[in-house]
């Protein structure tokens, strides 16, 4: 590929770490030199300068460091991909066994290349002679054992050549990177030093730079959303090219089968998700709402001061704890009541994992969520409305039921919708407590499964990212994302619209 640059460069370049260090040193040097130069242009009288002296130093520092570091980051990310695609040209199609792929072979080649670099560093092997040797593959095997690297597939001559090419290209690339980054840093240093005079608007330049940094940080939030949507949309489209979309949306069966021909319909999972969420909301809404009413309207200041933080402790407990509680404590407890040989003497519950197990525990988790949101909303109802009601002779509970709650209703509905979106997206409680059976069952004491548990089960373990059974998880994830996003938008809209009325 690059015959002009052979193995001689190996070791003649800097690693990214040393490069960063060198550029940073140059930057620090630039800070002092720039500041000094600007000061001396004003005869060491800062009053004659446009900006405070340190802004001049910072300008040189930034111009030296930042462009070089940005290019370095891109280079470090891009180089392995480019090198790998160039080196993969040397792998012959016939050395890719059935069931394997070029990608798998190339990950082995990468590992071989790493082993070669390591071995060359230790002086075990001479890379120039290895490439020409007739028994290169055998030698390669010895090298791998001596540096303790294992390769999954059968090695062939062309793979060895490809690995050698990779070492060569990486060395060339690293060498070019050292030169390029060094040049960029020096150019930035020289350019900014040339501008160091008392009339240069250093503060404005530095502040412009800071503003760009702030804007790019704010853009990361957008990038995350775009990342989420894109990564899931692409995989979902790939899934729909492998699997009929009508089956996904309208089928009635979920039966993944890794030999192919699976029924992958979201409807049974959606049923399980909604059922468990409804059970959770049936627990969380009355308890949370009445707690909020009591705390906001009846409780003395000291009671409120104790009870509210304690309720919020429930919200701070990680979901894995609730999951474990459902699996080990609450599920068996329910089974002792409703199961075979239980207290009631009925056999309604076969397994400790069930809709009720997961739903009730999830409801407990959501209590503080509903109560603190409703509490805020009830407190936002103007006191004048309560006073008006008392003045007409209504009791406290009548006031709450007939004045406060109707006024707070939109906000409370918003809070419940937010809780619902939480419940739909909750993972650990259902993974541990709900079971794995996808069906349309109505008995709350039977196991059901949810969208989130299926995402976890399809994506953990050794999934093959080309089979519809694995990438169906992305379609499930996208559905979940759209569902929760929709609920959130509606909830936030309702809450905001309501808030405007009383402010």
């Amino acid at each position: 590929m690059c015959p002009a640059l052979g193995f001689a460069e190996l070791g003649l370049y800097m690693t990214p770490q040393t490069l960063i260090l060198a550029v940073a040193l140059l930057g620090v040097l630039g800070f002092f030199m720039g500041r000094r130069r600007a000061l001396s242009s004003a005869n060491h009288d800062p009053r004659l300068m446009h900006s405070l002296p340190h802004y001049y130093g910072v300008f040189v520092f930034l111009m030296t460091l930042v462009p070089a570091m940005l290019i370095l980051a891109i280079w470090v990310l891009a180089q392995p991909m480019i090198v790998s695609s160039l080196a993969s040209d040397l792998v012959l199609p016939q050395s890719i066994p059935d069931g394997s792929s070029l990608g798998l072979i190339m990950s082995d080649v990468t590992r071989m290349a790493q082993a070669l670099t390591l071995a060359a560093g230790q002086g075990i092997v001479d890379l120039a002679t290895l490439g020409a040797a007739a028994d290169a593959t055998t030698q390669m095997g010895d090298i791998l054992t001596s540096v303790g690297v294992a390769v999954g597939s059968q090695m062939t001559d062309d793979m060895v050549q490809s690995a050698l090419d990779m070492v060569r290209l990486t060395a060339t690339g690293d060498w070019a990177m050292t030169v390029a980054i060094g040049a960029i840093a020096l150019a930035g240093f020289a350019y900014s030093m040339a501008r160091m005079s008392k009339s240069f608007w250093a503060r404005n330049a530095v502040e412009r730079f800071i503003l760009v940094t702030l804007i790019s940080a704010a853009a990361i939030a957008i990038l995350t959303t775009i990342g989420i949507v894109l990564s899931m949309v692409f995989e979902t489209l790939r899934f729909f090219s492998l699997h009929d979309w009508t089956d996904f949306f309208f089928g009635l069966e979920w039966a993944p089968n890794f030999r192919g021909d699976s029924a992958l319909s979201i409807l049974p999972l959606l049923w399980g998700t909604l059922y468990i969420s409804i059970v959770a909301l049936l627990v969380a809404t009355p308890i949370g709402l009445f707690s909020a009413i009591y705390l906001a309207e009846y409780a003395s200041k000291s009671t409120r001061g104790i009870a509210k933080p304690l309720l919020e402790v429930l919200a701070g407990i990680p979901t894995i704890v609730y999951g474990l509680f459902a699996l080990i404590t609450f599920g068996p407890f329910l089974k002792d009541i409703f199961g075979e040989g239980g207290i009631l003497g009925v056999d309604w519950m076969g397994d400790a994992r069930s809709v009720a197990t997961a739903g009730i525990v999830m409801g407990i988790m959501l209590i503080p969520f509903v109560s603190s949101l409703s509490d805020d909303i009830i407190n936002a109802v103007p006191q004048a409305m309560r006073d008006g009601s008392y003045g007409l002779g209504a009791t406290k509970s009548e006031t709450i039921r007939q004045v406060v709650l109707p006024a707070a209703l939109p906000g409370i509905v918003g809070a419940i919708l937010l809780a619902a979106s939480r419940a739909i997206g909750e993972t650990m409680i259902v993974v541990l407590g709900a079971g794995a059976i996808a069906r349309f069952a109505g008995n709350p004491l039977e196991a059901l499964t949810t969208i989130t548990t299926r995402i976890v089960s399809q994506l953990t373990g050794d999934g093959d990212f080309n089979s519809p059974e694995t990438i169906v998880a992305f379609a499930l994830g996208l559905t979940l994302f759209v569902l929760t996003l929709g609920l959130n938008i509606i909830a936030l809209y309702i809450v905001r619209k309501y808030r405007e009325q009383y402010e």
Partner: protein
Amino acid sequence: MTDHTNAPTFAQTPRIKKRNAAEKRFKGYGLTAIAIALTMLVILMGTILTRGVGAYTQTFVTLNVDLLESKLDKAGTRDPEAIAKVTTFGYSPLLKAAMDRVVAEHNIDTGLKSGDMAKILSKSAVSQLRDLVLSDVSQIGTTVKVKFLANSWIDGYLKGRVTRDSIENNKNVSSAQLDFVDALRAVGVVEKKFNPDFIFGADASDQRPEAAGMGVAMAGSFFMMLVVLFLSVPIGVAASIYLEEFAPKNWITDVIEVNISNLAAVPSIVFGILGLAVFINYMHLPQSAPLVGGLVLTLMTLPTIIISTRAALKAVPPSIRDAALGLGASKMQTIFHHVLPLAAPGILTGTIIGLAQALGETAPLLLIGMIGYIATNMPDGVSAGLFDPNSAMPAQIYEWAKRADPAFYERAWGGIIILLVFLISMNLLAIWLRRKFERRW
């Protein structure tokens, strides 16, 4: 209304009685709701404590082991390499002999063969003995006193989890062994003691629950939190400063705002899918690495930090800004020299709460391969800590829960205690900071 004119002012008509009763009932509902919620909290905490505290003690068997030269170093050269060739298998006769010795010393009457007696020890006992010998080969030929872990069944027996009835058809342990343990306990060879290895040690394979510990997973969580801290705080604070102080009111900033509040409510598992698709499948970062976990948790924590930072910035009164601007400071100087320091306590509080959330989060970690991995190697540096496969505290707890063995359940609860100690101290720190630095203008 004329009907009521003759009634005494404070007499309770049936209607008023009814209304007052309804009032009492309504108040009762509220109290009941709070009582239910708090009861649940007590039950939850009680369960965690009662079930988890057992993980902190462990049953140990202290034995005098003769390190026979004939078994370990036949040539008698004390050559470490030759001794290293003796596999763990070669050490089990020593344990059997040590058991025989204990029985003889204390005149214990047991019908068990020495092999069955040695089975009360953990499966890790042989490798523990081998490591001990290899650490100093000159011990060979002497007698050493070693504290071994008992296996999880014996441990469960001492903790009351295993009874003679429950093991009737159990291949792993027999009631004769339990009798033997009772005898050993009477003479002080078997003891239940505090086990620091649960807190600081590494995870063990699913055959040896007694040897599993949280230490390595804690290190994994620590490195993840390091990534979250170093990425989400600068990015989050910078983004908030822009949005709160500089952003013009236009549709782009509106979109960003709506985006952030929605991102805060996206289910955490979706961030896991993003991490799998982008960081692992696309960027080929190593699976199970705390770096990837940290990146995913950063994306998840960012909205929380942005929202609390913006609230803290908003709380700084405009008069501060006006005063600084009036004295000739630039906008950037006003914000960085005056507004930001005043908002710092609020930002810090929000950051700690965001970190606590990230520390307890499990679901996204499942998708990027932090389960199914047995975290046995303590990372020996920052780079190893970031890039080598590891587990994290909540993932480790899930892993133990999944192994479906009561001995591992106990460790999962014990692990939760550690996790909660971290979370509670972080939240208390946040509350303390808020109280100490809170200012009202």
